[in-house]
């Protein structure tokens, strides 16, 4: 397939692998965090790790929208569906995220809640138009990539004067999460999480541009290479990071020039700031309460804010004690370090959110990579 196959070419991958192997200093290690779940997924799905020398270690970051959604926020969706009897529309990935009392949105649906999977917030708006007698709520999640479409439907709903449409805004911000990780005791004081560089987000960066990462490169002396979600993008970014590290540079480089500019999509940014404002703080699964890390709907659009419309208040609900999602999302632990990984926690029956989405480190690892831990008996 044109424009896709070129970025999955095995021959080029082999050449890049050879270049990386030639470039690395076998006497040191290269701990590279891929922030995005999209990268985690690509690495697992295409077997990128098999092409890397052992000194290059990939650390999975928190950039998986459903993974960082805390139980308390999912509970809001469940309450809307079961108690407020609204039509709750959300993305497919969201449906299986564990909530309190063994529930999830999918289980709420089985209990009679009207929960519908949509591919876009525009579909939720259509539902509201088609069913004026029902309250329709879009449960919005995601980083900067999915925020502009949510802003757009809120504006459209306002323009159409829709009285039965509102949004639970769970949109979160990438730079705040990166700061949180770089400021974490594991990185700053304890040194238990060695981080030598970041593979920067692909789609998020098409919106926010590469400029916001310049601060991390400069302030924390960590190289950042923004990369696309195709496996060759990832390999190329790893090579670029290895070179920066070897040369002692800490710069923002852009491998994904076919889609990302320094300033990003200004129109989308304007749209987002028209509809949303910063939340003072927001709870993330894994990272805890992170200041100024999420968005909420501005006063001017308050009529479309489901949280105020239905008087919702998110509570902090502790994760399952055995679940290591928090540490895994911070890159401190690997899925195999978790006692429940692959035993009671599986994609069919996720205990933690990292096992839900294919972008989650545990699900990616479970689905694509667990044979590595348990060597196959030779024929």
């Amino acid at each position: 397939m044109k424009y896709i196959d070129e970025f999955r070419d095995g021959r080029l991958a082999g050449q890049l692998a050879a270049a990386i192997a030639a470039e690395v200093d076998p006497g040191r290690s290269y701990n590279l965090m891929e922030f995005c779940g999209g990268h985690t997924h690509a690495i697992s799905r295409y077997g990128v790790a098999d092409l890397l020398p052992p000194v290059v270690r990939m650390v999975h970051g928190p950039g998986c929208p459903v993974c960082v959604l805390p139980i308390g926020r999912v509970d809001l969706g469940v309450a809307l569906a079961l108690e407020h009897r609204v039509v709750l529309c959300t993305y497919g990935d969201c449906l299986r995220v564990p909530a309190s009392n063994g529930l999830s949105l999918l289980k709420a649906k089985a209990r009679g809640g009207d929960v519908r999977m949509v591919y876009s917030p525009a579909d939720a708006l259509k539902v509201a138009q088609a069913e004026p007698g029902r309250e329709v709520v879009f449960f919005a999640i995601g980083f900067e990539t999915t925020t502009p479409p949510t802003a757009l439907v809120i504006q459209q709903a306002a323009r159409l004067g829709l009285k039965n449409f509102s949004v639970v805004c769970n949109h979160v911000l990438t730079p705040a999460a990166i700061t949180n990780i770089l400021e974490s005791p594991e990185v700053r004081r304890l040194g238990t999480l060695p981080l030598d560089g970041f593979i920067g987000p692909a789609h998020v960066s098409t919106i926010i541009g590469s400029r916001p990462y310049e601060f991390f490169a400069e302030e924390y002396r960590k190289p950042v290479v923004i990369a696309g979600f195709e496996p060759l993008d990832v390999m190329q970014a790893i090579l670029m990071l290895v070179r920066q590290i070897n040369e002692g540079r800490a710069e923002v480089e852009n491998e994904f020039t076919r889609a990302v500019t320094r300033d990003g999509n200004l129109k989308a940014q304007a749209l987002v700031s028209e509809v949303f404002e910063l939340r003072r703080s927001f709870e993330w699964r894994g990272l805890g309460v992170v200041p100024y890390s999420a968005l909420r709907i501005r006063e001017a659009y308050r009529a479309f804010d489901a949280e105020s419309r239905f008087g919702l208040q998110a509570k902090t609900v502790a994760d399952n004690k055995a679940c290591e999602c928090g540490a895994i999302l911070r890159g401190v632990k690997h899925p195999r370090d978790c006692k429940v990984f692959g035993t009671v926690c599986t994609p069919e029956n996720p205990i933690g959110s990292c096992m839900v989405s294919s972008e989650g480190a545990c699900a990616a690892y479970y689905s694509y990579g667990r044979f590595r831990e348990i060597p196959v008996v030779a024929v």
Partner: protein
Amino acid sequence: MSGVRADYVRPLDIKHGRVDLSHGAGGRAMAQLVEQLFAAAFHNEWLAQRNDQALLPRPEGRIVMSTDCHVVSPLFFPGGDIGCLSVHGTINDVAMAGARPLYLAAGFILEEGFALADLKRIVDSMAGAACEAGVPIVTGDTKVVEAGKGDGVFITTTGVGVVPSGITISGDRARPGDRIVLSGTVGDHGMAVMSQRESLAFGTDLRSDTAALHGLVAAMIDAVPEVRVLRDPTRGGLATTLNEIAAQSGVGMVIEEAAVPVQRQVQAACEFLGLDPLYVANEGKLVAIVPADRAERLLQTMRAHPLGRQAAPIGEVIEDAHHFVQMRTRFGGKRNVDWLAGDQLPRIC
């Protein structure tokens, strides 16, 4: 000759009529629906007897029986509809034992308000598929549920067939060293149905691959009676089927991504919907597992049949206590091909 004139019965208004609760109530309306729609389309000597069951001659050989429920949405899709799908699906399940399908039974759950014109289209499509396959629908049942309690029509078909002597095909017979052969491209059916979804409709000339595979199977076992496993990768796609066989046989598998045929349109649609063609349903494909030294002969036979033209060897069975299915990616790495978790596509067969 009796001089009694038959009662006048207004013929079924197939063009404008709709299913109502009386069509399932057991009275005249139901008899009329059965007579004018089902029996007229499926006509054969067993249905003509008008009994609640079909009395069949005893077949020679081991009997295979299988049943399959069909709840596809939308009911009509490019390349087929729920009618022919329900015939092909069950014929294929029977054929995957190496059997020759003999008879079908069909059960219909109709929703009040369903257009008779649509029902006729579906029933005609079933009749056409059954006739083409040479497998008559010999008995059936109809029930009607209130509006809102069904989704137009649900169809359950049951099939009976016989296995030729000397043939033993079962999911637990794969052995390390065996070859895995696939009869053609994967994902066509699932993506054709997906392309018609209201919320998601996208333009494509993609068609469902729905087809009865018993002819292909007959040719295969005739040429290579040593075939060990046959299975049609329907719901859950190729990935799920391979995992089922690996677990049943207590073996592992390694497949080559580059060897699995996928149509360009399927690849493209999967790409933008974030799906993996390995998990997308097929309705006219099969996976065969065969001893390595018979693989080439099997492939030649399959490629000579219209439904196996694109048959390809995709991998081999290995010893693995964990029963993993692994794949060597086109990219040069390796990964697990796991069971499908959750539901990639709702209601496709």
